[in-house]
């Protein structure tokens, strides 16, 4: 079967920055695929290449078998993109916005599908409101709607839930899940790692324009099934500084590969005379995999990584609430 998305050795440089350094990627039809990475990793550039907004210096990209340059009409018809920026045309109402977007794809009589989109995105009551009057979350949902007007087989969402409140995020994901179940291929970039863990069947992690890990979410989790120690102490032993995944005040999260390393850690604490206020072992979640792959210390890119890490940590917590709500 033709892959939904096929990216072959795609490279792109902006001035001195190598935004994409030779990406190879195949996303199969029907997948729910996650694209993770810190800011500046190249996620949005990669999506822009797929959408024809950015041209690759090298390599090629195909959507449902259609080259994004050579056969751009077919490629764009097969692709729906929810951009990261919250953009809108202030001249129009919600319904006008969707009708016009539909028309750009040559679909004149699309009212029924637009009604359905409005319904699923909880926008029916706002259909005739001007775009300017909408809240941030509503604008975001209109953007999702605009990406769906031409029923594209492949849907790319670039951080779609940023600024959308918890309840709406849930209904948005229910809708996206339904689209996936109906056969649409979904590609998602997000900073909410729990979101990716819960939704995506397969995940690519990007760093500095490269894919550093590409596997099923399950495999990623088990491959990095190391342990995380939650240590409450004034400081971390000098020899263990490099193993710190993140710190929140005096609580430090330290990655272990094996149980017997715990003994080494305890010895180091004793030798340096550090008082332990709290010590606990935690299971690996995607956030820790992510931090180990793209966010740990020692690398120049870790500067951006740590920023993302703290953001991801915050997001992770708020998302945990969502996760519980969804399960009950």
């Amino acid at each position: 079967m033709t892959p939904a998305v096929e990216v072959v050795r795609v490279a792109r440089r902006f001035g001195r920055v190598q935004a994409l350094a030779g990406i190879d990627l195949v996303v199969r039809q029907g997948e729910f695929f996650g694209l993770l990475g810190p800011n500046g990793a190249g996620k949005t550039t990669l999506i822009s290449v797929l959408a024809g907004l950015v041209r690759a210096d090298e390599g090629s990209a195909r959507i449902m078998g259609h080259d994004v340059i050579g056969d751009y009409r077919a490629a764009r018809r097969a692709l729906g993109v929810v951009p990261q920026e919250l953009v809108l045309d202030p001249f129009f109402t919600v319904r006008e916005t969707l009708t016009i977007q539909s028309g750009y794809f040559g679909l004149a009589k699309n009212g029924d599908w637009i009604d359905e989109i409005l319904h699923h995105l909880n926008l029916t009551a706002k259909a005739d409101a001007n775009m300017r009057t909408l809240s941030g979350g509503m604008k975001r949902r209109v953007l999702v709607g605009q990406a769906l007007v031409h029923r594209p087989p492949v849907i790319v969402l670039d951080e779609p839930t940023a600024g959308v409140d918890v309840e709406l995020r849930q209904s948005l994901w229910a809708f996206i899940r339904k689209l996936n179940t109906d056969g649409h291929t979904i590609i998602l970039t997000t900073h909410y790692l729990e979101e990716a863990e819960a939704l995506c069947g397969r995940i690519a992690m990007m760093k500095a324009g490269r894919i550093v890990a590409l596997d099923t979410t399950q495999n990623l989790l088990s491959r990095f099934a190391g342990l995380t120690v939650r240590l409450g102490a004034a400081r971390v032993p000098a020899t263990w500084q490099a193993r710190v995944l993140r710190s929140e005040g005096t609580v430090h999260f330290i990655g272990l590969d094996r149980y017997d390393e715990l003994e080494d850690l305890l010895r180091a604490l004793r030798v340096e005379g550090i008082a332990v206020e709290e010590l606990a072992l935690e299971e690996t979640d995607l956030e820790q995999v992510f931090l180990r792959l793209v966010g740990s210390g020692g690398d120049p890119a870790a500067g951006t990584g740590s920023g993302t890490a703290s953001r991801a940590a915050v997001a992770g917590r708020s998302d945990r609430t969502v996760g519980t709500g969804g399960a009950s």
Partner: protein
Amino acid sequence: MTALRGGWRTLLYKELLRFWKVSFQTIAAPVLTALLYLLIFSHVLEAHVAVFDGRVRYTAFLIPGLVMMSVLQNSFANTSSSLIQSKLNGNIIFVLLPPLSPLDLYVAYVAGAMVRGLTVGLGVFALTVWFDPSTLLLAYPVWVLAFALLGSCILATMGLIAGIWADKFDQLAAFQNFIIVPATFLSGVFYSIKSLPPFWQALSHANPFFYMIDGFRYGFFGLSDVPPLGSLMVVGAFCAVLTLVALALLKSGWKLRS
């Protein structure tokens, strides 16, 4: 497949809707401006200026000049402001993501701007004609139409190029204030270039706007500073060159796709 190729029509519709929703500003205001020009200039100069050897009243001479000036300026304003707004807003992406070809984009943006320019021109004519109803008797309506269409197409295309080029409103304002406005004012809207000293006459011949207005005026009175066929060829060639430039820019994705 063919049914799916009509995206440009929606973009044209959107462009029309865009200026129509703010028509007070995009149509009524420029009509009023042109009317003020007529009131002031015709009042002050009617008794002092003889054009076409006195065969046409100055007020009558001024009317087609003002109509064409309004057509040109508003055609430019429509494409250029639509594009810069979309670029600054970021909503240009809505036009870049669908399968619209460079020709689709060109036709839709330019046709939308031509409708705006011609609508304003008609509005100006409908009001100014009362100051000299004899101008209603067009000598050669086909020439009037040909120059109105070509002139609005040229300025709409220039606005498209300027809108693609500009990153900020003030760059666009500079383009408008330092190129478009001087070129229209120095093109014989308010005078016959025959009344100018030889140097300025020669310079006017290098101004494509002069041919647009002179040819347009020929359609009204059957009189012009230079032969209308020559003007038509100059204007037609200018339009063709600009169109090719605009299409090449759209195809390259310059400033729109990186």
